[in-house]
């Protein structure tokens, strides 16, 4: 069996006795198939019983053992140590608690803030009496094609890996958060729900347009949910339910218009179309610099070849259920 020596540089912090966090190194022999959770458990059992981490199911379903490995959030029980060593071409892995949450001790973070945000977004079914029967005798069927719209978003195990990696959470306190907003989308397209699309208004109030689309949540999710996909769809729904007078929605409209007009993006009109006169004034100094460097196209763009068929295609696609 493949074996090798590895060093685990673990971030430690006990608020009862430490003034600031520090790193402690543990050297171990690891073998093929060994998970990071097994490593942490071995350290706790044989080297240092004070090491604190959360774990429970060991099957990537309870979501409690998420930690950062060389900077990236992962479930310790789903992470094979040798694969990580090979990926980073190293013999040392740095293990740290998740970001965007307070550390309680060592690798344990306080989830309460993230979960409170989720609660505020009301991600639970509010039954629509017109769809959900009032008696147990009747059924409320959800057909496979209806479930497909939100099926993957029901797989979230609340491990908060996406919340830890999220760029928007890191810079905007008010931002709803990736798994939270994806859950909101899940109910916005559930035919049994009474609020449905109106839920997008909650997402709007929680700054969903501030998602930077960095795709980190899609990359780190151990369940391959890609919260960003749900957030983008929720933004689309917000436009459908009438939240059109904001930069995010107008930006979407600007792209759509450009495709219909010429097939390529009209960058020159983008500031005006997205933010009105304010868009021009705010970006004037940069705009002038770019103009002087010849970095602008004519405000009237020549349509692409076969543009008429593109327009026809868009119109047909707009009619799709």
């Amino acid at each position, binding site marked *: 069996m493949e074996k090798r020596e590895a060093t685990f540089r673990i971030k430690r912090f006990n608020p009862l006795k430490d003034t600031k966090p520090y790193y402690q190194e543990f050297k171990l022999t690891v073998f093929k198939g060994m998970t990071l959770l097994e490593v942490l458990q071995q350290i706790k059992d044989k080297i240092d019983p004070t090491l604190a981490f959360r774990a429970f199911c060991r099957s990537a379903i309870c979501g409690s053992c998420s930690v950062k490995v*060389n*900077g*990236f959030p992962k479930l310790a029980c789903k992470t094979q140590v040798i694969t990580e060593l090979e*990926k*980073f*071409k190293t013999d040392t892995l740095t293990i740290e608690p998740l970001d965007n949450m307070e550390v309680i001790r060592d690798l344990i973070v306080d989830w309460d803030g993230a979960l409170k945000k989720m609660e505020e977004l009301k991600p639970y079914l509010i039954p629509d009496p017109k769809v959900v029967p009032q008696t147990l005798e009747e059924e409320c069927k959800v057909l496979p094609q209806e479930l497909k719209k939100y099926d993957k978003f029901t797989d979230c195990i609340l491990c908060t890996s996406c919340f830890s990696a999220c*760029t*928007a959470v890191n*810079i*905007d306190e008010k931002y709803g958060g990736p798994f939270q907003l994806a859950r909101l989308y899940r109910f916005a397209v559930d035919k049994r729900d009474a609020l449905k699309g109106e839920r997008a208004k909650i997402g709007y109030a929680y700054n969903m*347009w*501030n*998602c*930077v*689309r*960095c*795709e*980190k949540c*899609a*990359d780190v999710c151990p369940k*391959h949910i890609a919260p960003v996909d749900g957030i983008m*769809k929720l933004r*689309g729904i917000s*436009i459908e339910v009438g939240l059109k007078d*904001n*930069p*995010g929605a107008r*930006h*979407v409209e600007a*792209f*759509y218009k*450009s*495709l219909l007009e010429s097939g*390529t*993006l009209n*960058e020159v009109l983008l500031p005006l179309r*997205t933010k009105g006169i304010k*868009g021009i004034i*705010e970006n004037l100094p*940069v705009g002038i*610099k*770019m103009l002087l*460097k*010849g*970095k*602008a*196209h004519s405000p009237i763009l020549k349509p*692409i*070849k*076969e*543009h008429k*068929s*593109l327009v*026809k*295609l*868009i119109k*047909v*696609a*707009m009619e*799709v259920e």
Partner: protein
Amino acid sequence: MGRYAFYPGCAAKGASKELYESTVAVAKELDLELVELPQFSCCGAGVLEEVKEAVDLAVNARNLAIAEREGFKTIITVCSTCLLVLRKTKWLLDNDEELKEKVNELLKEVNLEYKGEVEVKHFHWVVLEDLGEEGLREKVKRPLKGLKVYPYYGCHTVRPYEILGFEPSENPNSLERIIRALGGEVALGKRRLECCGFHSFWPNPKGSLLLTGLNLIDAKKSGADCIITPCPLCHMNLDANQSRALKEVKESFKIPVLHVPQLIGLALGIEQKKLGIHRNIVEVNC
């Protein structure tokens, strides 16, 4: 070398003309035949998903289908967001027969069909695949000796790995390989995989500029003489928006930001004008 359908993306045709110019010049020097198809439309930068998923898929499946119809096996793009959007469409359609059928029904209305045969790659991936580091090194006429370059990946060339897949999203090295092949030194930083905030610029300009400011500080701290990026959108924030991004983090310095083909072009000894170096907002002294 290969013959490719060239999908420059809207930025390279407008606000990042120098990216278009440098890509064409470098491709010529490296014997990569780029054929720009006049039927290609804007990919919608992901924003089209917010209009309607069916529109996003139809528009991008059309781009893929046009390349297939014209007999190309690979589309090359120089924009990371175009790369992600086109590859995401392909990934969704190739992994869902039912969805592919539905989208093909739409494409039938305009006499097109997406078969799933065309690949989508980034320009610098193809440089590494076709020439390799050794092949590229052989073409260098003016090695970037002593030049410290900060490789800034941003997001959409590496994430999500499931869709991009060229290199590990947590530890990519394609840009480092290119820098070294050109004779330059890699300036190591902590934020090479962080977001520049471009896609939230309109709803949240302060947040967007803050992210760019932090990335610029990291590049400066790493001792870099310049930054390179494979994405024109990252480039816009790092270069055109540099002074106001630095204001957001209470700093003021200048660091040149080059598109990947511009750096390659300089090492290949291509005339600076052909690389559009004069168009960069932060002056590049080379």
